[in-house]
């Protein structure tokens, strides 16, 4: 498999706190890569640095051999990056369907002048409906996003990201807040999309699901990468057990 994105030497400081220290790994074309680590490990920060909403102190993000680390977020999105948020961020003034339809029309809004003279939303709404069906919330497509349960909004985030036709899908804890049936179903949906060729980088705390669906795991702890490899081997790694599982066991014991 060839590299889709090479993430090299990412360092992010927030004030005096170092959130990420020299993190490097690559994302291969077509793989399902899980990004795990205890709370505060820097996973979300890393995802946000890749999409461009956090500015790293230093980093290189080679997407198909081109460094995108200096590009503004909207240009990274146009090059094929899409991201879902851990804390959902739907557009409150729109229906569920239009949240996705806007993303489905990303080519129409690329140029403001063209967007001005472009009116029909029906093709994008059809596409959005298909995506809402694939995540299982098509029946409430015309409802406002206000007041929807977390399970719906999480799936809306995934559908909206897919509508961007991304080459690399960045998912930040898409399963959090879902019950285990919903979580397994959404994980299956994402795994299905991955089987069709989409490269996925997913942060997840739900270890059962991430071990089930991902091909490879990268583990962060305290801003450092401490492991990178096959999920089963990674989970047997001593450093990972101490940093991740060990801590939880200690927590459980106490």
């Amino acid at each position: 498999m060839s590299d889709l994105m090479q993430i090299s030497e990412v360092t992010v400081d927030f004030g005096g706190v170092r959130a990420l220290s020299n993190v490097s790994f690559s994302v291969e074309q077509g793989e399902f890569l899980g990004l795990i680590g205890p709370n505060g490990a820097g996973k979300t920060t890393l995802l946000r640095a890749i999409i461009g909403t956090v500015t790293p102190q230093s980093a290189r993000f080679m997407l198909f051999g081109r460094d995108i680390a200096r590009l503004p977020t909207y240009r990274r999105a146009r090059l094929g990056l899409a991201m879902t948020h851990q804390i959902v961020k739907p557009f409150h003034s729109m229906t569920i369907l239009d949240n996705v339809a806007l993303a489905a029309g990303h080519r129409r809004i690329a140029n403001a002048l063209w967007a001005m003279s472009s009116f029909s939303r029906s093709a994008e709404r059809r596409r959005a409906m298909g995506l809402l069906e694939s995540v299982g919330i098509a029946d409430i497509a015309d409802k406002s996003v206000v007041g929807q349960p977390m399970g719906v909004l999480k799936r809306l985030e995934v559908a909206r990201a897919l509508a961007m036709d991304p080459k690399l899908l960045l998912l930040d804890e898409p399963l959090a807040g879902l019950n285990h049936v919903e979580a397994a179903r959404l994980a299956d949906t994402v795994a299905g999309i991955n089987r069709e060729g989409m490269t996925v980088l997913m942060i997840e705390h739900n270890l059962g699901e991430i071990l089930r669906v991902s091909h490879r795991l990268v583990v962060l702890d305290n801003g450092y990468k401490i492991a990178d490899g096959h999920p089963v081997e990674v989970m047997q790694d001593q450093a990972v057990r101490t940093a991740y599982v060990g801590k939880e066991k200690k927590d459980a014991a106490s």
Partner: protein
Amino acid sequence: MGIYEISLATMICINIILAVGLNMITGFCGQISLGHAAFYGIGAYCAAMVAKAGASLPVSLLMGLVMAGIVGVIVGLTSLRVREDFLAIVTMGVGFLFVGVVRQQEALGGELGISSIPSHGMGKLGFLALVLFLAALVTAFSLLIKRSWMGFAFDAVADDEDTASILSVDVTAYKLAAFAMGTAMAGLAGGLYAYFARFIVPDDFGFIPSITVLCMVAVGGVGSVFGVVIATVILTLMPEFFRFISDYKLFVYGALLFAVMRFAPEGLAGSARSLVHAIQSKGGDG
């Protein structure tokens, strides 16, 4: 129609152009502006100077529109760095800056303003027809933008800039487009006002007109073109029909702004929508 009614109708149409322009910036794109009258003033002064230099009506109006739009884009650049309440302060500063600078310029007539602006030469009724046509044009254009994909992207920018950019919206371009279009409309309104009044002073374009036009947008319902047009008509007529309001205009507008924000943040348009909704659901139940 008497001269009084004609001039009142003309003023309503000018205010509609002004308010629909601000609605583009504040309503569609979510960028608050407390200095909209500065662009109204730029249009008025520019058109007046050009007209006095001998230019024809269309040329003067166009110059006012273009000049206000250019300055609008420059002010719009600040909206890229500051947001929400900070942007409100910045735009308010722009409003004061405009009045402050114009007052000191001998070439612009200083405190005394510009008088004996050439006549448009089309008669009061003819001018009203022109202003009415332009107000209809601006309103139609605004409705078209709202329905277009540009309007869709504006909704996203107004809701959440960061998420919009993740969905590949070039937030910078859209904000500047909103400022350019909205302030150009204000410039057009200013040019029309200069021809209508034929005498302008800096205070015509100060803080109070800025708040008045913001009031029209807020009362109408931020983002709703029809709501804004209706509110503009009502708020322009109100001080005329109730003379005592004229003396307490600022007080009434302030109280109105407060009441709308507190009790009906979506303005007339929002209240009408919930009323229709309530009637429909009642009808459905019965």
